[in-house]
């Protein structure tokens, strides 16, 4: 199945909504491949000037990088600049530069070609390594190489581009995102990337609309083409027709007006009109996101994905490093709470190259990995405990499918507490621990699980896939994947009721929690906590504050009597249109 549709001259490409907003403007195709290093012979008399050109270019490349770092340090977490510093070290590699200069003189070929040829050797070696870490280093090396070559060719720095533009690229590195943000960038559209790619997160933080995962946008767009991107629904339109433009402008205006009104409620609690308090928190993976979430009126963090700490490295951060990270996050959200979900990774992350599963979704992941690898799990538990001294930290176990797993995880947690106590290290002794309910077996055993935990958080993304036996990335069956399937809704109700019978609160951190169409239903089913991506938080809060719990319960009852996803969606959308007419709903 294709993600492209054509209407006359208009090309519509579907991707993933990475940062909200609508942008319309000229496209700027930022192609890293566009830098070509053609081989040209040089004369013996030209050797000195060629080497001089190389040295000047390297110095300029370094200056550029230092500027990016300086800029990044103001805007971002200093940790993000480490990658860039490695690039500066490569520019200062005297052995590398020495052999490039020697080759220019010996082979009588132009500087850019020798730079390309020499650095590509290292890149190829890195790409041939089995692990992800080396592949990412290969990108860094590529970046440095292009930077030198571009300077040799005296190409105008793309970041100095004139006027406003939507950047179209295969992929964007954090450095690209940052350097571009100094210009009037209207938006980003990329072939590769997901909602949690670093570039997507940064564009959200910088408030620039972005659509990623468009697969072939770079092949269809040319610099100067008019491009429209819709960062709400994840669509890019090349050469949009007049009516498309008008529709998008209308949508942009509606969202803008609506968002302005949402700012007014940023500081208010997510209580229903009849005063039932709902805990509304955010899903976060990187420290940089917290600020953005707070300006959107988030209280706490309902899901902090700790596996973000593992990105770009092959080894697990030490307990001390983890304590620093977790404490920084807990301090940032204080007095609100943060729920740290312990590393939710598949086996491939831990044993790159040598580990293969035919069906990783039914394989070694989540708590299964952690229970088999206490040397990984226990230091993380210790680190989270040590960061809990201000009593605003909670722990959550992912992918629990049996009661035995839950008990074993709790034993390890209790052991970690005893050890810390013995060492006289401070921690919150009444720290709350809960599980993600994302496997059907855990949903069915929800009451027994609830009896042995402090909270349940429904992870709908996996739960729906497992329940309906649908891989949402498989185009042949993807349409079967819906949170509005009657079986899913009944399961959600069952989990909430089970939790309440055991007096534990029940939250939801899957995408369903952030779907405005589902909000009234979930409130009516009695959900206590919603944890959503920061960009949709104001909208969800607006809905919660606009409805009465009493009415929401009636809506939920009606939905439970329905038997098709279409019927349920239609009904819920009529409820929204009726009760909150100003809410711009996705078509």
């Amino acid at each position, binding site marked *: 199945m294709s993600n492209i549709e054509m209407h006359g001259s208009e090309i519509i490409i579907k991707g993933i909504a990475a940062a909200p907003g609508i942008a319309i403007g000229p496209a700027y195709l930022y192609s890293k491949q566009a830098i070509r290093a053609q081989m040209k012979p040089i004369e013996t008399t030209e050797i000195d000037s060629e080497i001089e050109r190389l040295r000047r270019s390297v110095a300029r490349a370094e200056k550029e990088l230092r500027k990016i770092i300086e800029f990044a340090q103001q805007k971002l977490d200093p940790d993000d600049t*480490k990658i860039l510093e*490695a690039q500066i*070290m*490569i520019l*200062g*590699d*005297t*052995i*590398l530069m020495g052999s490039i200069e020697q080759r220019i003189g010996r082979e009588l070929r132009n500087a850019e070609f020798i730079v390309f040829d020499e*650095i590509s050797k*290292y890149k190829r*070696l*890195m790409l041939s*390594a089995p692990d992800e*870490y*080396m592949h990412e*280093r290969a990108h860094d*090396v590529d970046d440095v190489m292009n930077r030198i070559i571009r300077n040799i060719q005296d190409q105008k720095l793309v970041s100095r581009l004139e006027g406003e533009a939507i950047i179209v690229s295969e992929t964007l590195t954090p450095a690209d995102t940052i350097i571009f943000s100094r210009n009037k960038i209207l938006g980003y559209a990329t072939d590769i990337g997901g909602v949690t790619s670093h570039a997507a997160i940064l564009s959200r933080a910088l408030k620039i609309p972005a659509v990623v995962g468009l697969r072939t946008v770079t092949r269809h767009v040319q610099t100067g083409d008019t491009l429209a991107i819709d960062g709400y629904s994840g669509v890019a339109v090349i050469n949009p027709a007049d009516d498309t433009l008008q529709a998008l402008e209308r949508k942009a205006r509606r969202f803008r007006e609506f968002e302005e009104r949402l700012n007014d409620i940023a500081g208010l609690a997510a209580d229903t009109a009849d005063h039932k308090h709902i805990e509304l928190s955010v899903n976060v993976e990187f420290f940089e996101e917290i600020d953005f979430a707070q300006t959107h009126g988030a209280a706490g963090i309902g899901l902090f994905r700790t596996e973000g700490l593992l990105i770009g*490295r*092959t*080894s697990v951060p*030490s307990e*001390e490093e983890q304590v620093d990270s977790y404490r920084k996050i807990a301090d940032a959200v204080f007095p609100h709470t943060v729920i740290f979900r312990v590393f939710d990774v598949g086996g491939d992350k831990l044993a790159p190259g040598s580990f293969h599963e035919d069906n990783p979704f039914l394989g070694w992941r989540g708590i299964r990995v952690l229970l088999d690898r206490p040397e990984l799990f226990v230091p993380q538990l210790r680190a989270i405990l040590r960061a809990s001294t201000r009593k605003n930290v909670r722990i959550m176990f992912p992918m629990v499918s049996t009661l035995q797993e839950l008990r074993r995880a709790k034993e390890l947690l209790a052991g970690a507490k005893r050890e810390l106590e013995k060492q006289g290290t401070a921690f919150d002794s009444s720290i709350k621990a809960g599980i993600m309910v994302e496997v059907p077996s855990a949903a069915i055993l929800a009451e027994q699980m609830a009896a042995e935990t402090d909270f349940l958080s429904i992870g709908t993304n996996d739960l729906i896939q497992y329940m309906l036996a649908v891989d949402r990335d498989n185009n042949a069956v993807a349409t079967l994947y819906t949170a509005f399937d009657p079986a899913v809704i009944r399961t959600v109700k069952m989990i909430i009721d089970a939790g309440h019978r055991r007096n534990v609160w029940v939250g939801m951190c899957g995408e369903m929690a952030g779907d405005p169409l589902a909000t009234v239903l979930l409130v009516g089913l009695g959900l206590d906590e919603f944890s959503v991506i920061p960009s949709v938080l104001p909208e969800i809060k607006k809905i919660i504050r606009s409805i009465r719990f009493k009415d929401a319960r009636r809506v939920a009852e009606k939905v439970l009597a329905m038997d098709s996803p279409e019927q349920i969606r239609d009904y819920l959308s009529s409820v929204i249109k009726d009760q909150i007419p100003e809410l711009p709903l996705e078509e």
Partner: protein
Amino acid sequence: MITRTVTITNRAGLHTRPAATLVKTAARFKAEFTIVKDEFEINGKSIIGVMTLAAEQGSTLDLRFDGPDAEEAAAAVVDLFARGFDEE
């Protein structure tokens, strides 16, 4: 020429920071410094070379030093490995 064999003990292996420390240390000496791992042979004074090697914890490297101060260079570099690059 002096040869030495070392094992990487620090957890992060020869990643960016330890790689930089290694290169900086080697650069203090005149002696040529070569690292051999499996079939790879790289110049130990080149950061991009050491990065390419990305030797992980537990792997063994053969080091070669050649030059007037090879003895001192070998001592300094081997000491660095023994201390695990002062990382945990």
